[in-house]
């Protein structure tokens, strides 16, 4: 089997940097009333700035597919390859622009490059790792010599007031249900991509992809972050597509994006358990990880969890944690790409250093990890 190296990283963040104070200027207010939970939620998620693919008048600046295509072009340029040389494109997103056909087709269309193989992954944050793994395996097997994986999100379109006004009454608009309001302050837009090939680039830093592991725990969790149903309780979780019409689904509150917090907190130990099992499977020592890129902040990991991790010899020293959630926001499937892009751009990576990426998904409980090793070449 041949190796697989990440030789290019690219990102696309739409529009200007948006501060916490400006969020509602862009996504709007439900029934015209600002949310009373703004400060508390932002303290909790730690985000300070983000980007939106809409302007202040509510005009769409890009489609999700256009953002993905921009990130892929940047990744190909970073790898010093013509984007048209791609033999495989693996995309990931929470929700494409259209319901049908698949998102990868839309991205290929935007790129306008010659025919190539596609893989179209739709999940939430962990769809990113599914796409990367597909690209990685295609290179490893020798079936392809060039591949791109991308993640992109246009989350802000879910947050327009019109998506909520059937399920949030005017009198509760100042204090909307937390399962609806939290995500409005948390998710934002952007895209990132990786270029992957069998050899490191001749000049500069490449990342050898050592392993990628992903596991779903949907056998024990109901949907936790979801859209398309007004409830996640079995028996009350009629899918939007089962209503007599899209209007009826909307009226029933089935079109809003929701997060069940109680379930979310129950997922943390499960993710920890999976991480520990990978420590044993791959025999890695947390002390030997130089950069840990988790798709969440250290803050959200309670003291109790840290204590458990320490007792299991599993805690990666906090000074080695690297993420850019605070500045680029939570961009779902794009975030791991954006973290890697910034790591490569800003850190002085040395040959042999190791990187562990962690992407959990609260959608219906998925955890995924990727282990990378830094390789450098000089012409």
């Amino acid at each position, binding site marked *: 089997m041949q190796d697989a190296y990440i030789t290019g990283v690219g990102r696309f963040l739409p529009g200007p940097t948006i501060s916490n104070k400006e969020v509602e200027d862009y996504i709007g207010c439900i029934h015209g009333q600002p949310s009373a939970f703004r400060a508390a939620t932002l303290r909790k998620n730690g985000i300070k700035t983000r980007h939106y693919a809409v302007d202040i008048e509510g005009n769409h600046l890009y489609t999700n597919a256009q953002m993905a295509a921009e990130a892929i072009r940047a990744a190909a340029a970073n790898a010093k390859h013509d984007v048209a040389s791609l033999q495989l494109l693996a995309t990931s997103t929470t929700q494409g622009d259209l319901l049908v056909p698949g998102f990868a087709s839309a991205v290929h269309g935007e790129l306008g490059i010659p025919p190539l193989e596609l893989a179209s992954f739709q999940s939430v944050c962990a769809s990113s790792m599914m796409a990367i793994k597909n690209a990685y395996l295609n290179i490893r097997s020798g079936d392809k010599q060039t591949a791109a994986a991308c993640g992109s999100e246009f989350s802000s379109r879910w947050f327009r007031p019109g998506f909520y006004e059937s399920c949030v009454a005017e009198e509760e608009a100042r204090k909307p249900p937390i399962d609806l309001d939290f995500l409005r302050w948390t998710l934002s837009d952007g895209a990132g991509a990786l270029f992957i090939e069998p050899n490191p680039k001749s000049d500069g830093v490449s990342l050898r992809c050592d392993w990628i592991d992903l596991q779903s725990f949907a056998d024990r969790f109901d949907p936790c972050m979801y859209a398309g149903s007004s409830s996640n*309780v079995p028996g009350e979780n009629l899918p939007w597509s089962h209503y007599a019409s899209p209007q009826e689904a909307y009226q029933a509150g089935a079109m809003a994006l929701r997060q069940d917090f109680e379930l979310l907190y*129950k997922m943390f*130990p499960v993710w920890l358990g*999976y991480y520990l099992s990978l420590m044993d499977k791959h025999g890695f020592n947390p002390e030997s990880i130089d950069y840990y890129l988790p798709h969440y902040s250290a803050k959200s990991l309670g003291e109790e969890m840290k204590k458990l991790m320490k007792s*299991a*010899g599993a805690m990666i020293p906090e000074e080695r944690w690297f993420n850019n959630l605070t500045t680029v926001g939570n961009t779902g499937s794009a975030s791991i790409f954006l973290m890697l892009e910034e790591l490569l751009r800003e850190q002085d990576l040395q040959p042999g250093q190791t990187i562990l990426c962690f992407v959990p998904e609260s959608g219906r409980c998925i955890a995924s990890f990727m282990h990378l090793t830094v390789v450098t070449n000089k012409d």
Partner: protein
Amino acid sequence: MEMKSSKTAAQAVMRQLIITWTDFESRLLKVPIIERIMRDQLQLEDYRQILLNHRQQVIEGSRWIARASSSIDNRYPELRSTFIRHANTEHRDYQMLDANYLSVGGDVETLANSEKNIGSEALSAWMFHQASQPNPFDLLGAMFIIEGLGKQFARTFAQKIQKQLRLSDDQVSFYLYHADHDEEHIGELEDALQSGILSDDGLAGRIAKTARVTARLYLLQLEELGNY
């Protein structure tokens, strides 16, 4: 060097125990009674049944720990003390549970005549069998699962029961107490694992396996609520 290797060995066992426990705890979410508690569908009758079924295991718990302590030989006086202390701390816990049961309308006679459900029978038989083996330190794995449940789940459990049934603190004191106190036992477990017992060949694997069996039988006990 000896210190470091006993720490590394203890950490490896802790990893296995946490993996088993996190699997166990998340599988609990699909046990019918827990699923209903999580969805705010609990009735007072359900709470009485939980207490009545749980009571058997609580009574037996300190008894098998006491049995285990009598199976520990003179090479391990510290651990025997720990086991005896642990049994002593818990052996009257069921009285708190009984008080909770009576405070929510349970009757004395039902309590006096209650027996183990078929899952509790299996769990109890397993625990006593293991506790009767010489130096049964594999039971540290069982304690981790049972205490871990106390520490991590009892609080959610108590709060949800209280909220759904509008009960006062003293009506759910058994679960609140365990949420507050079981943490200390986890510390004791870490100390025990680092005490040098892991130099015994195969013990690490037996601790992990006993944890897995106990977790499965504990689930069975909850799945068989009311099936006597």
